[in-house]
């Protein structure tokens, strides 16, 4: 026999219920204060309480509907183990519906979790497979769009660059560029900027800018051709575009995942365009393809590793180019190894005099 604290809601009692004690005496259920017996048949069981851990026994009689609630989880468990056999069937049904409800709840929570996790998941996937995804998307962007992108950022930086496009050096640049880009699907533009740092860069769509400092650092035109060949390959291989796609995708997914909309998508894309840092793999790829293009256009390819030698020797010089193109010596070695494995190609020296040309 066990005594269980419960609360009784009955016609005639306060609407907010009254505390009673439930006694389980063998097959009969009895309440104390007010003293009552529960009917043997017709009791319905239900899970109650905000945490659904309580138990309600409800029944009807002439006076109306009665409900006896045991809200305390432990007391409810005690009662369940002590319920008379007449209620075992109802108990089994209760357990079954409880299992069903739990399953539905788990399903619901999982769906909710999935809903919130999806953006994060997509972000993770994008991070893991950024290169192939960006490549795939970049291939689907028309050339005109790419060109527009490049032109837009070129317009932005034009004021700072101090172009010397009518100098002799710029003319040589265009001449070399034309030889290197024959048969390309891009329309190239070559610009000479009056800046002392040893640097050159390519914008998407075929705009290539070389600093005068770089030309001054070269000892012969073939070295400049090596640099140009490298930059042209950045355009041909769409490295800049892939970078932008990657950045945009990351920013977009990041905003999607965090709900942080409007914190300068355009701004970050512009900075990306301006800095244009390529991955080491991209640099290596551009080196290899650049060497091939030098061979194709009949320019002495040794100018390329030679220029890396110059860069490596100048390690103390302004680091603009060194920082984005690390390990010049390593790249020089890779190029020399590749050249050694090829049959020697007869290439007529360009022999432009004087070198460097007037800038």
């Amino acid at each position, binding site marked *: 026999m066990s005594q269980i604290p419960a609360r009784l809601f009955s016609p005639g009692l306060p*609407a907010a*219920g009254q505390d009673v004690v439930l006694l389980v005496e063998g097959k009969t259920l009895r309440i104390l204060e007010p003293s009552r017996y529960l009917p043997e048949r017709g009791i319905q069981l239900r899970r109650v309480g*905000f945490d*659904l851990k309580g138990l309600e026994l409800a029944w009807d009689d002439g006076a109306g509907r009665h*409900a006896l609630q045991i809200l305390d989880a432990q007391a409810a468990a005690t009662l369940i183990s002590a319920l008379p056999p007449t209620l075992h069937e109802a108990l089994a049904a209760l357990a079954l519906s409880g299992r069903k409800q739990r399953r539905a709840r788990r399903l619901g929570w999982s769906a909710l979790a999935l809903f919130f996790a999806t953006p994060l998941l997509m972000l993770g996937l994008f991070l893991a497979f950024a290169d192939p995804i960006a490549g795939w998307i970049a291939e689907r962007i028309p050339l005109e769009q790419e060109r527009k992108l490049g032109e837009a950022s070129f317009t932005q930086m034009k004021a700072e660059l101090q172009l010397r496009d009518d100098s002799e050096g710029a003319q040589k640049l265009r001449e070399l560029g034309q030889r290197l880009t024959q048969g390309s699907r891009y329309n190239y533009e070559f610009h000479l900027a009056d800046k002392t740092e040893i640097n050159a860069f390519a914008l998407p769509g075929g705009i290539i800018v070389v600093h005068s400092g770089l030309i001054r650092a070269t000892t012969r035109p073939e070295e400049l051709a090596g640099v140009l060949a490298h930059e042209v390959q950045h355009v041909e291989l769409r490295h800049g575009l892939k970078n932008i796609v990657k950045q945009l995708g990351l920013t977009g997914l990041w905003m999607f995942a965090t709900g942080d909309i409007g914190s300068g998508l355009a701004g970050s894309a512009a900075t990306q365009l301006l800095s244009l840092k390529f991955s080491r793999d991209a640099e290596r790829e551009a080196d290899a393809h650049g060497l091939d293009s030098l061979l194709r256009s009949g320019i002495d390819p040794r100018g390329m590793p030679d220029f890396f030698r110059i860069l490596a020797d100048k390690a103390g010089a302004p680091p603009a180019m060194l920082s984005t193109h690390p390990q010049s010596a390593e790249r020089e070695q890779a190029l020399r190894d590749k050249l050694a494995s090829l049959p020697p190609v007869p290439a007529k020296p360009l022999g432009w005099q004087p070198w460097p040309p007037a800038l």
Partner: protein
Amino acid sequence: MAMDVIDYEIFGNEMQYVEIELDPGEAAIGEAGAMMMMQDGINMDTVFGDGAAQQGGLFGKLLGAGKRLLTGESLFTTIFHNEGVGKRRVAFAAPYPGKIIAVNLAELGGTLLCQKDSFLCAARGVSLGIAFQQKLGAGLFGGEGFIMQKLDGDGMAFVHAGGTLAVKDLAPGEVLRVDTGCVVAFQPSVDFDIQYVGKIKSALFGGEGLFFATLRGPGRVWLQSLPLSRLANRIVMAAPAAGGRSREEGSLLGGFGNLLDGDD
């Protein structure tokens, strides 16, 4: 901990405050910032957590405070302690138009579940806890969120509701359908759930949303006629400064109507 038996009086009609009379040695706890006035002789003490029975050590206190943060209350509770010789009064004001509900927890079996953020003040010994909604649907669409406030004890507690208050006693099995957001408090014996409005047309154009909150007896429930969010929404919608548009009567005249009605 024994509850303090406090006498109280509620003043005002639509913007109320409750004045609590404390015998010497008695105390009341109030939501931080709810105090309106207090007589000389009442000492104010701010405690971390909910100020109920001793909570085991620092960890218990932190847990209690964390729970209070979840329910939208401040981290601290203020205890108002009468250290004078005679009876002293302290008053707590409701933060927005509505009614103050005085609940004797002993009558309800010791527990009341209420909308978070609705607690105003209580006799010392009433503990403030949280109850986590187990039903996904009710949590998402029931209008009360997943977390409700749980008041435990057997003293008086004062809860605040918006607009006009409705107290309904539900017989066993009796079901009341309520607009979501209008439920302020209910006894734990009441089953709180949601119900789909039933027809696509009603769901889309009826203006009541997709779901009703359902309250199933037995037990007592407290409903508010005007949830604060609804009031705030209307005020923002009517406030040009907040990007809303004042909607005047006589809209046929449009801008001219505004000139003519003399409000500006």
